């Protein structure tokens, strides 16, 4: 009945394959380096590293196409069923959309900076997002009609902007994990580690910061759009509903980060831990609030 479910499934497997390939790329990069160190002129396994990396990118791109097709198909199904097509109208669709946004962001990053190893972390998060979505009970995966309050054109822009900011924070979180791993490996000595294929600590740190400076304004915009919607639907732009409050909390948390970065020397290790903490708060805002706290947004 829902063709989109098949496509979402396919996206899941493609992202899984991409994650495996990126991890393979990182691992082979290590062996290559060690063998090359053993002696020049010898054919090393590092020759495999490049094609595996290319395949990883290719599969990710294909995954993105299928992900896009899944969302569009779902949009069409929604349109047929209810006359409104926003394919991010329940928890399941929202997760698939976040995965999509993460992959778009990641591919932009890979093509701009030519850094592949990051895929092992960032594509993983997209994969986990879509994986978690597929674990939801079937009735959450279908396209139930929207309750009257949500049935509005505001849902297109408010929800998509907010979810995109979550994707940016997810990237920053993934980069934070990568930073800590690399840092640990460097402390223990370079040779024994797979992390030699990673970009430099400074690059990881800067990219994480960049992701947050993109997420921070997007979240503000998303929250504001939510306020405008609430004002239009209920006649009050702010009611301290748990979901809107948590978006604001997340925004405050990243506000502290942004301003801390303005002070001299705040970055690196601390920033990485903070970015992971921030992303955990995003996850709580996205999942926890819906299941643990009650409010207008608990539409799942």
């Amino acid at each position, binding site marked *: 009945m829902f063709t989109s479910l098949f496509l979402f499934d396919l996206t899941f497997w493609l992202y899984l394959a991409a994650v495996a390939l990126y991890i393979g790329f990182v691992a082979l990069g290590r062996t290559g380096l060690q063998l090359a160190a053993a002696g020049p002129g010898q054919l090393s396994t590092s020759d495999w590293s490049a094609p595996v990396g290319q395949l990883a990118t290719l599969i990710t791109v294909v995954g993105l196409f299928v992900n896009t097709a899944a969302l569009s198909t779902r949009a069409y199904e929604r349109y047929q069923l*209810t006359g409104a097509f926003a394919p991010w109208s329940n928890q399941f669709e929202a997760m698939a959309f976040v995965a999509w946004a993460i992959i778009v962001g990641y591919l932009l990053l890979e093509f701009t900076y030519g850094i592949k190893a990051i895929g092992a972390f960032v594509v993983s998060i997209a994969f986990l997002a879509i994986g978690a979505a597929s674990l939801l009970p079937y009735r959450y995966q279908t396209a139930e009609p929207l*309750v009257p309050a949500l049935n509005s054109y505001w849902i297109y822009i408010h929800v998509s902007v907010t979810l995109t900011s979550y994707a940016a924070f997810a990237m920053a979180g993934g980069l934070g994990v990568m930073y800590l791993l690399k840092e640990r490996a460097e402390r223990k000595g370079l040779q024994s580690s797979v992390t030699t294929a990673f970009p430099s600590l400074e690059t990881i740190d800067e990219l994480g910061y960049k992701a947050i400076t993109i997420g921070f304004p997007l979240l503000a915009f998303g929250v504001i759009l939510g306020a405008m919607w609430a004002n239009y639907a209920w006649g009050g732009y702010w009611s301290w509903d748990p979901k809107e409050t948590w978006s604001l909390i997340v925004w405050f948390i990243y506000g502290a980060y942004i301003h801390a970065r303005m002070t001299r020397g705040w970055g690196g290790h601390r920033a990485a831990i903070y970015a992971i903490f921030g992303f955990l708060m995003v996850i709580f805002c996205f999942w926890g609030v819906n299941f643990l706290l009650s409010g207008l947004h608990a539409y799942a």
Partner: protein
Amino acid sequence: MADSIAEDPLSKKSAELVGWNRFDWSGLPGKVVDVLSSLKLAISLFIALAILSAIGTVIQQGESSDFYIKEYGEPLFQWFQTFGFTDVYNQTWFRAVLGLLIVNSLTCFYKRFPGIWRSMRQSQINVSPTFIAGLKQHAEIPLDRESGHVAEQMIDILGGKGYRVSAKRTDNGISVFATKGIMGRVGAHVAHVSAAVIVLGGLIGTVTGFQDFGIGLPGETYYIPQGDFSLKVEKFWMDYYENGAVKSYNSTLTVIDDGQEKLTKTIFVNNPLVYNGIWLYQSSYGDHWDRIDSARILIADKGSDQVVSDVMLEWGTPMEVPELGLTLNVTGFAADFSFDSKTKQVSSKTSEHKNPAVQLTIAEGDHRFNPWLFVDFPGIIDIPESKYAFEIAGYLPSKYTGLQMGRNPGITIVWTGCLMIVVGMALSSSIFHRRLWVNIQPQGTKTVLHFGGNTHKGNIDFTREFSAFTERIKGMA
């Protein structure tokens, strides 16, 4: 300054030279201003607001004392009350922290923005090779060309990438200064002011506006004192999806002002009506508690104990049953029946249909009866003078429409602030401020070029851009 903002010593120094500190803060001790404009305070306030707001989502807000005692126990509830945790967002201390953030960001703007503004019009052109060598990005490039020519090309290269370039011939060669993206920093400061604008709009709204909720029955007209007009509820109905879920609920409203019908509109959720600055929103609906649309009555003959008639009655519309010599009317309803023995008044205890009762007005020959008949307890009310027994077989409740109304004169200011904050933040995240310095020293017919630059963020993009520039300079034809 209480904290160290990532700024190069040069601009600090020139700020002092230009005498920015000559401002007399009307006697305010400089220390206070330093603290109020400090980033440390800003970071602490952001964290504090995050924690305080979180408390309000974990502890449910605005419930009854019974609720908290049941949920958390008496002693904890005492603490909650002491700290105001049951109504966090309306506490003075919560507002104070928010207010302090606004003061903080305004002070920050006042202290830092003029420096940025000034650097938009003024360039620090003349710097030494040592200064350049101390910059984060720097390169020393020997070139086989004459220095004047190199300078011209430099101006072209940098200008071609959108930099604002100025050049000057000095004692130690030619100095070139190029800058780009100052709007990114201006954007950050636009964000700082707009936070205050939003809060100001919010304050104006709460002080001069109002919020109210009312229910309306189709066919009735209500006076709205805040707007000095009347509102007639023409119709209320619901739409459903195929699977039976509610798709929307709608009310058709007519505004009557000065005895004239001014405006008729059907409102539904996400589609309000606006008249005289008052917004009317479809916010809820429900079954009315002292009124129904219709009721189905079974009439039994007491003698034969047989149902002799089955009639549908509309509210307030008398209906004749000629074969029985009866005239019936539904004249009262109570969703949760309650009787006050002192005033002899019937009313509904709650709005829920827990114990519904319908009042019939019966004309039977010369007799008039007004019995209350209980829907859930048929047969317990007997009218001795009547030949018949009456029973309510069912009823259709009147739907009321729940209307939220309000006027918020601060709302435009709030949205203006929001627009400013979004634009400011977008600018600051998409544009970053960069400065490049070039010192070109002639060495006979050849040249040594010192090239360096910094950025206040976006290091990785700047590094790429810088090395692209260096490559182009090295390949200068």
